[in-house]
């Protein structure tokens, strides 16, 4: 299990006005692994993710990507470094087609007018969707007419299309049925198998033990547990989330 370290988060602190959202968050994500990020509401999961995604930088602390400290001030910084986030709301434009969403903000164009190279983009999109074994209708279908699972697949495919290293997923199965959840979890495993690092935020303990390789638990803005899944039981994890267990697991 000596896979290479991909991302290391060290001592993140963040205040929103008088409220301390993060007081001491540290954990490590490895290549080809799924790291589950857990915690109760308000534990700091979303704030942590926003710091890594560049959406809302932390006040202090460091983020180290492949051994180098990086500065993530804007989403574009994270994107440029190969960090892609699939937000809970999916951040899709429902009024655009599947392919337009996959290439949103990174369209391939011809100079000088920025003419869209739709043919090239659709070919590339088909290639990625095939590697993910995703089942979608015609690529010019508006995202508004897709099912919840299909929309999730589009958002994940977009992350894969652009995120060459790390994919962050915020509650990808929250709004899905059983079959669609299984499909998305399969996608998560596939991503890790292809060498991506994956951070998975979820409330669902079943999901964690099905797909995660390591588990990080936040509580009141602090890392209270970081361990391999094989060293854990659901009871330990739940105990750390609720605070009934206060020992910090050190089996990293």
């Amino acid at each position: 299990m000596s896979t290479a370290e991909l991302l290391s988060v060290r001592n993140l602190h963040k205040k929103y006005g008088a409220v301390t959202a993060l007081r001491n968050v540290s954990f490590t994500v490895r290549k080809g692994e799924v790291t589950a990020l857990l915690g109760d509401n308000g534990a700091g999961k979303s704030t942590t993710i926003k710091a890594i995604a560049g959406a809302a930088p932390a006040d202090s602390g460091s983020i180290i990507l492949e051994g180098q400290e990086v500065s993530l001030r804007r989403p574009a910084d994270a994107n440029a470094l190969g960090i892609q986030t699939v937000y809970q709301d999916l951040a899709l434009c429902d009024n655009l087609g599947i392919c337009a969403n996959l290439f949103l903000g990174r369209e391939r164009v011809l100079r000088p007018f920025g003419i869209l190279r739709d043919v090239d983009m659709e070919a590339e999109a088909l290639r990625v969707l095939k590697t993910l074994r995703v089942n979608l209708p015609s690529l010019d279908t508006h995202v508004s007419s897709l099912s919840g699972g299909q929309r999730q697949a589009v958002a994940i495919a977009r992350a894969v299309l652009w995120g060459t290293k790390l994919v962050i997923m915020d509650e990808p199965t929250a709004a899905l049925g059983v079959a669609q959840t299984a499909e998305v979890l399969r996608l998560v495993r596939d991503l890790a198998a292809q060498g991506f690092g994956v951070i998975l935020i979820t409330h669902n303990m079943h999901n964690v033990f099905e797909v995660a390789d390591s588990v990080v638990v936040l509580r009141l803005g602090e890392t209270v547990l970081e361990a391999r899944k094989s060293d854990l039981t659901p009871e330990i994890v739940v105990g750390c989330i609720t605070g009934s267990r206060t020992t910090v697991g050190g089996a990293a």
Partner: protein
Amino acid sequence: MTVSVDNMTSETQTHSPMRRWTQRLVQSSDLGMAPVIAALVVIWAVFEILNPHFLTARNISNLSAQIVVTGTLALAETFVILLGMIDLSIGWSSVVAAAVFSVTTVFLNWPVWPCVGLGIGASVIVGMLQGLLVSRVGVPSFVVSLGGAMIAEGVSLAMLTPHGGSIPLSDNLSTMIGTLNIAPTWSWILSLGLFAVFAGVMVSQHLGRMKRGAGEGHSVFFAKLGALFVLLIAAVGTLCAYRGVPWLLLIFMAALFICAFLTKSTRFGRHLYAVGGNAEASRRAGINVRFIQLAAFTIAGALVGLGGLLDAARLGVASATVGDSDIMLNAVAAAVIGGTSLFGGRGSVYGALFGALVIASVTNGMDLIGAPSSIRFGVEGVILLVAITIDTLLRQRRLRSGRV
């Protein structure tokens, strides 16, 4: 599991592409141009029954010139409405363009083309300043453009009142554009040539789609293209039976096609729709949302300037009374009637053409049957309310199925 094109229900798969297309139209929450074209057919039929002069070549020629100013301003408004915003300044801003043009050509005696640039430039500045306030400060466009309209009114009056409120134009360019038609021979050459280019682009795109197994099928595509060709022949034929294509109409159609290219085929257009559909998602995708907003208001400004100059050319005079007329409300109504959603992100620049046709047809037809303005306003109001109701119902249908 592989990527497949035919992920529809087994029932729809068995139907022909044509049947599938109509079915998709009925079930979809995005009806495109279908309602406005249906409305147009009804309006024309009613007026033709009430007065057989309605569909004569001469009246169609008049109508084609009457849509130009409303259409150009609706085109401008479409860029802003696609963002889910509104620009209430387009009426007075268009007067600013006409005032600057008339003062510089008539009183300063400057050559006409630089004055065209100055006139349009004045409206561009109005649009750009509003765009800056909206995009940088985040002031609601409704309020910004309300203030913008007042300032534009002040500027227009400052320039026009010393000359009695209106300045007659006498330059050759305004006279030609405002009153003359392109000779029938050239009308045919120009329109068929433009259609050949358009069809060439569409066919090559369609063949590319078909090769990848996507697209709507040959029958639907060529039926649409054929229908468009028949429409073009009918329109140009009718106009040539009178005096040929009005210069006004040619300029409007050129502006329309440039806008269609900009919104449908370029990265800027893609981003315009994206920001209108989901600004936060666009921002996260790395799109410069503020720039798109600023650009939309600026482009709208340029089109407003063009519309103002065309109106002045048509009337033969730059007049302050234009700003007080219903020119702005007509343009907003035309865009909405043409299917552009006030919620943003949905619609098309072609809606400006069809919406303007609806408004102009009602005005023209009412004049023809001698109906008073009271009835005309009533009818136009009802049409507008029907259009916005359809838009709202479709949005609710999308919301119900969980698609914002």
